[in-house]
């Protein structure tokens, strides 16, 4: 039978993950706070551990956790960082 798909397959294709294994020493890691309660505390701990491994860190924050990051924020993170850690918290 010939059906009309409700899916948008262009958005469902498997996307390869970015390459892993980059060294932390000397890397710039962006810590993205999604502004959920205590997310900043979680990122504080992660930041301290990253410094122990020789990484530089930058902090960014979303305006509200329930909405996607603004394109400008995503661009800024991509331009300034080698890696990003996004903390989901509650």
């Amino acid at each position, binding site marked *: 039978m010939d*059906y009309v798909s*409700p899916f948008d*397959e262009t958005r469902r294709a*498997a996307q390869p993950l970015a390459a892993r294994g980059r060294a932390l020493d000397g890397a710039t890691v962006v810590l993205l706070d999604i502004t959920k309660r205590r997310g900043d505390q979680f990122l504080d701990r992660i930041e301290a551990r990253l410094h122990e491994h020789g990484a530089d860190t930058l902090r960014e924050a979303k305006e*509200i956790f329930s909405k*996607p990051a603004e394109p400008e924020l995503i661009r800024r993170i991509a331009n300034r960082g080698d890696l990003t850690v996004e903390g989901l918290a509650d």
Partner: protein
Amino acid sequence: MDGTTAPEFTLPSVRGGPIALAELRAGGPAVLVFLAEECPTSTLALRRLAPLSAPLREAGVVLAAVFEDPPEIAARVARTTGFAGPTLAEPAPYDVSRAYGLQALPTTVLVDRDGEEADRRVGWDAAGLQELLTRACGTAVEVTREAPVVKPGCAAKCSYDAATIALLDGGTDELEDMFARGWTDGLPVVPPTRERVAAMLGGRDPARVLGEVPPARGVATLERVAACAVLAGCRPAYFPVVEAAVEAALDPAFNLNGQAVTTQPSGQLVVVNGPIRHALGLNGGIGALGPGTRANLTIGRALRLVVTLTGGAAPGRMDRATLGHPGKLGFCIAEDEEGSPWEPLHSERGFAPDRSVVTVIASDAPLSISDHRSTGPEELASILGWAAAATWSPNWWPLGATSVYVICPEHRALFAAAGWSKRRVREAMFAAVTRPARELRSGETTPFVLAADPDATITKWTSPEEIVVLAAGGEAGRYSALLGPCLGMEAAIVSREVVESA
């Protein structure tokens, strides 16, 4: 076939548009993996070859999957196996497979940069495929030696006679096929044949785009929305309401993205006002929040299917609701405007009373409120208001989000007899529900409560405007309902007028 010219072809890609063999080998050799969903060895092969797709591409080799299946099936297998390379779908009677002389699946064919077939392997043969891929790349390629290292395949569909192919093309149970494709919310659906979708569209432009549906940002063409309406069981006459509901839900102010992925239970309540309620037989009377009325159930379901299928918010996957609620199957109600002493919702929101309007509200499951004893409006408003006290969390005051009250006819009559307006009902509910801050300082409470003086009076809502009052329900029984809030979304209530002409 070694050394012969590989037959040229153009087939539909599951990610949109046709792809020709010439495109696949434009930058170097192409490796074609012919397969079919019914063949377990095909699935095994694609799953094991999937991780090689990216490194092969870096070496200038395109690894492509060519399915003897419809595009939806091919897309699903590619997705579940993690295969990200070009994925093509060959329709019956499988002329391309026949041109390649396939007898069994999977068959892997190496087409070199000159368009010659340089190698071919049948079934799963780890060593043989490693040789083929190494030959394609010119450098060593590792193929997993996980057991089984050799596995025979299945007969190619193209190798069957015409009568059997006809059965293969249409021999499956349609309803089961819908489940296999994932085109469902867990219940059986109506298969979206081209004829049904065309009837649903009623002459509207199928390519018109209503927006991107979160969270996966699938593009809501009118054709896909119509496919969801067919799946949901809508009659074509319902489609203008579905279209307006989808448009409203895609308004960024509604924050469907947050609602679609949250661990909260929230669904999308669709409220219909205006003359179209009668034209479609929408129910705002007895059992309006329950089963029994096709228009209510299928219109609400169509919106949810757009979110779930086009938007990719499948429960347990991108929809992370801890429990969810039954309204996430479909949640649509008409307002009983004729039986109400108050202005209807769409009039409150600035629309003329004779317009048909859809309003979407982020909402939790209904909580029934029984009150057969109140004799005055203040008493009843207090009872109804206090039902909200424990919503979201008992000590979370104020809510800072919308509560929806669906007021039944007998409760409405009591307010009407006292001459109370909707506004007065809202204000009385708001004023009735207060507690001192000190009683709210445990468990999940708000920063507002923690910062307040212990004896300060805290209200359940920030303002009476957070209370929405709707009229619906059967004439007998003093049961109204409260639909709890969806928090943290800044989810505005959004209305759209229904446009009935194509």
